């Protein structure tokens, strides 16, 4: 029997689900191996009976936390889809400030006190709320990698992510190192699997796929020093998808 698959979204741009839609006619092949039972962005059909749940987005409020826990309870396998779900992504950047501070900046003096829709806590990646079985990283995800993970899961194989840096793919593609173009790049410490798409278009890697399990941070810092990139500038850019309070 085909595994039943459901998609759910939390705080995100829904670009990762769109990337699934961007598989175009290949979605028809996908439907051959799995049965999609819920995909709110594209389908009215919905069922709470599913084997695999794909979660896009990060967790911002108690009501989101509750919803995610319910989904975890229903799903045999839970997969984090994209940077917001996997590592918090850009949503975590606001954790630099207090919740009251960011609310005031965005909603001003509007009366939202006690309104549960606005009841935010600091952003969490989904593994800070529930157990996650697999991760499909990236902002957005790479649809080829997504299709690979789904087909692995459909036949009961464990999907593996590359554990080498973006630099490996970048060198293989014979791109010019973007540091040579005077740009900043997180390629040396970021997990590959995107085919080094940003450096391919002469833009630096921003670390959207998250850092390697054992990133060589000192080596990254050496590279930055060599090219004379300022520490505060570097911190800002380290942070873009991988926010952590304090120093790396």
């Amino acid at each position: 029997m085909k595994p039943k698959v459901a998609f759910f979204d939390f705080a995100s741009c829904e670009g990762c689900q769109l990337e699934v839609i961007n598989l175009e006619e290949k979605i028809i092949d996908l439907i051959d191996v799995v049965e999609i039972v819920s995909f709110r962005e594209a389908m009215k059909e919905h069922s709470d009976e599913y084997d695999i749940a794909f979660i896009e987005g990060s967790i911002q409020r108690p009501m989101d936390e509750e919803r995610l826990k319910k989904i975890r309870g229903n799903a045999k396998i839970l997969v984090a889809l994209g940077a917001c779900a996997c590592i918090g992504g850009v949503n975590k950047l606001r954790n630099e400030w207090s919740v009251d501070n960011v609310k005031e900046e965005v909603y001003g003096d509007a009366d939202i006190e006690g309104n549960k829709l606005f009841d935010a806590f600091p952003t969490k990646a989904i593994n800070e709320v529930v157990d996650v079985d697999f991760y499909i990283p990236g902002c957005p995800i790479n649809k080829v990698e997504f299709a690979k993970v789904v087909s692995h899961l459909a036949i009961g194989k464990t999907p593996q992510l590359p554990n080498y840096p973006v630099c490996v793919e970048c060198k293989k593609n014979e791109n010019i190192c973007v540091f040579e173009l005077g740009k900043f790049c997180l390629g040396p410490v970021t997990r590959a699997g995107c085919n080094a798409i940003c450096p391919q278009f002469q833009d630096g890697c921003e670390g959207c796929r998250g850092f390697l399990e054992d990133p060589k941070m000192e080596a990254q810092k050496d590279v930055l020093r060599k090219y004379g990139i300022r520490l505060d500038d570097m911190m800002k850019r380290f942070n873009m998808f991988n926010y952590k309070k304090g120093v790396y």
Partner: protein
Amino acid sequence: MVKDVNIHVKHLTRVEGHGNIYFNTKNGEVSNILWEVDEAPRFFEAFVRGKSYDQLSHLTSRICGICSIGHSIASLRATEAAMGVQISEQTELLRRLALHGENLQSHSLHVGYLVAPDLIGAPSVVPLVKTHTDAVIKIVTLHKFANYLSDLTCGRTIHPITLEVGGFTSIPTEKQLVEVKKQIIDTMVVTGEVAGIVLANAHKLPDFQRESEFIGLTADDHYPYYKGDVASTDGGMWPPESYLDITNEYVVPQSTAKHCKHNRDSYMVGALARFNLNYRHLSDEAKAVAEMFGLEPVCYNPYMNSIAQLVEIMDSLVDSTRIIDQLLSNGLKNETSEVEIRPGRGVGAVEVPRGLLFHDYTIDGLGNCIKANCVIPTNQNHGNIQKDMEAIGPTLVGKPEKEIELTLEMLVRAYDPCISCSTHYLDVKFL
């Protein structure tokens, strides 16, 4: 005794983001009708504070996956206005081409995948793969072409790579542009066929009229997306810098997305607003699509927004060929973006698929953003959706619940809301 109706559509489907519709009647009268947005707020304007000018478009593109190109370009235009950065003719032409790529992608997704199932009577495009194979293939062809054009100009459709302050990190080759132009001609034929399929089912679009105000960019000599002055169908024209006097955002308790109002208690932006304001600048091919559906300005039926999108698909294709011809006749040049850090405040106003988008940044002397404000098309539309629902609600009393639900869902869908954007908020509830 009339039976009371209580409809609650939680997390409306086939729209971007989370919104709910509530519709309740008591003793044969509408007692509650509400458009609620419960999407989680994301606080973009708060976290871009302190970020460098050259990171802003990459951060704010993450407001929305579907219109990330539009957000990037509005962001770049605001940054460039704040810092006094000049761009080349080639950059402007390539950005206009990128906006057409996104308009084509977003409109074909909306008309083909999200709206067409309602017209054909299916829950989603999935069963249509088997029952309406030819139609689905045509829509996929169109959507795929749009993504190809976006990939070519931006490196990637979702969260563009090549767009940067002052220009592009990388541009397509002349050979690629020649190839894309060939494909545009084929895609225009497919668009005509898709319009025919929609026309065959267009009688399902409710004939509902509510006079409202339409706001969008306008220009003297073309149908503008990239730049222009802001105009209203109620009259008046304003520079983008005075956007706060136009949008007048306010917070309502049922929505993490703000609402807007201008001359009346609500207004509409998007394809229908642009069509109503700039019809005279459409290409003959696009006007022919409008004529198929009897669509003329000023049209006050919000359900026709999807048809205006079809018209724009054709027009974006035609205008893309003009842009490519211009680029090829100028000859492509490898340019370097010239940027000098200077403090200032700037506004970028761009027409994106769902309507008029504003980004407003203040940059300090170090090139860091110290204040940001983004006013999103869907925010500008939420108030109008609510007012439309209030107007159409009483006409639905006594109809079967399924029909009421579908009519209200179709209304919200017609606006093609982008709720992630607007909270930077969508559901139908029958309480």
